């Protein structure tokens, strides 16, 4: 799967969980840049990513997700 396709799918997940239809992702974007993206919504996002991409994260992966760019890289590495 290409990076653009992963980004598109990830955008849809984040828009739905964070209730923000106009959200546009950037690689350097962090959770603190986005309204409602807190430690509570983060785990729901993680679960939805696993379901949509049919992958499984390890706890260590979460610690490496410093920004959206890292998140996409980790997703691609698991596909």
């Amino acid at each position, binding site marked *: 799967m290409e990076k653009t396709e992963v980004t598109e799918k990830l955008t849809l997940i984040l828009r739905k969980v964070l*209730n923000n239809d106009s959200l546009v992702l950037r690689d350097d974007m962090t959770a603190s840049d986005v309204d*409602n993206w807190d*430690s*509570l919504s983060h*785990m*729901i996002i*993680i*679960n939805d990513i*696993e379901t949509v991409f049919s992958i499984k*994260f390890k*706890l*260590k992966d*979460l*610690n490496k997700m410093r920004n959206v760019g890292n998140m996409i890289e980790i997703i691609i590495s698991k596909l």
Partner: protein
Amino acid sequence: MTFTSFNFLIFFPLLAVIYYLFPARLRWIVLLIASYFFYINIKPVYALLTTGITLSTYLFTRLIDKSDSEPRKKAFMIINVVLILLPLFFFKYFGAINSGVLTFLEDHNLRWPLPEIKLLLPVGISFYTFMAVGYTIDVYNEEIKVEKNIGILALFVSFFPLVLSGPIERAKNMLPQFRSRVDLNYANVIYGLKLMLWGYFMKLVVADRTGIYIDAVFNNFLNHNGTSLLIASLLRPFQVYTDLGGYSLIAIGTARILGFKVMCNFNRPFFATSMGEFWRRWHISLITWLTDYIYTPLSFTFRKLRIWGIVLALLITFLISGIWHEASWNYVVWGIIQGIFLSLEALNHKTRAAFEKKYAIIKSPVFIFLSIVVTYLLFSGSLIFGRAGSLSNAVVIYHKILTNHGTPYLDLTTLAYSFLGIFLILFKDFTDEYYPDKVKLFENKRVWVRYGSYLLILFIILLFGVFEGNKFIYFQF
């Protein structure tokens, strides 16, 4: 030796001079010796704990680093975490478990010659144990590189400004600072002294003064009416904030004078507009530690349950926080209450956001004020469980607050000094929160305003401070 002892007023300036007289590359050694001296000064045997925790953590983190096998790395991490938590569990819970077993046996008419053992908890054990646990997990998660200099690791575990009650620092913040060259910096010294001054004001003027009224009422709650208990309960959050918050500022200021930046522990908690926000502003070093090492792994494990997984993780995390405070039912209830507050907010998060958006009240001063008051009342109400001493006492206190009103017990001098201190705390926190660039006292550009403020606070400390029996509340945890 504690921050409010006379010995500290001699120890610290003397140490600061010796520290900066030494060549920069040797200063960490001076600090390590000073830290052990500081801790040994409380009780020599305690140094065995910091030494044991340092040695075990050094050995197992080096093994984690050297091992190529993931299961082995995990095993080394778990072994060290269990090993270094053992002393904490032993000192904290052995007495409670032992007396529980004795009571159970006696209830079933079984006499067993077990002596009732009461162990004194080594002061600070929770704080440096948590720091070492965090470091071990961070090395395992490859968040930081392993520390190869055992002396630097020993300094991280025993660093005297933090050893008694935190802030519970992280290795990734402190280890690079301990490794770097530290030079005498005028701005650091002045900033550190300002933090210490405000910390002493919080502790000596507010915490210990409000504590006199609160102790008088709570320690004799059967003879006080509900109105007095209500006043004491409403003052209690200020007592805890100024006690631990004051301690933290002295600790952070002390570290800053020596050239180290330590994380902030409180961020104007009484201006939080929800319990979630409150817990992001209150005892930040403990809450972020609990979030990283307990809440996140739990919510990750329960992630398939979506929002209910989060609720479960919140409840368990705060239950553990309650039991950490004390192995008693009143603290279990205190922890569960915090978990319920946060769970309800998590479940109603979207509804609240929609309500605030629909009526455009998110920036309304009245809505903000009401939210602040409700948050404060919820927190002060929950603190009764912690202060009551037992669950049955808490029930009696609640019952009295709701039903038994009358003329309150008024210790006018104590209350007047307390309210003066609380007013100054609230004034500073209010201006820092809403007008950070407009009202400045300690940071004012005019020299006379700055020095006038220092002298005024110093004068208030000397005039209204309590200088007897200053025990810090969190030393017991």
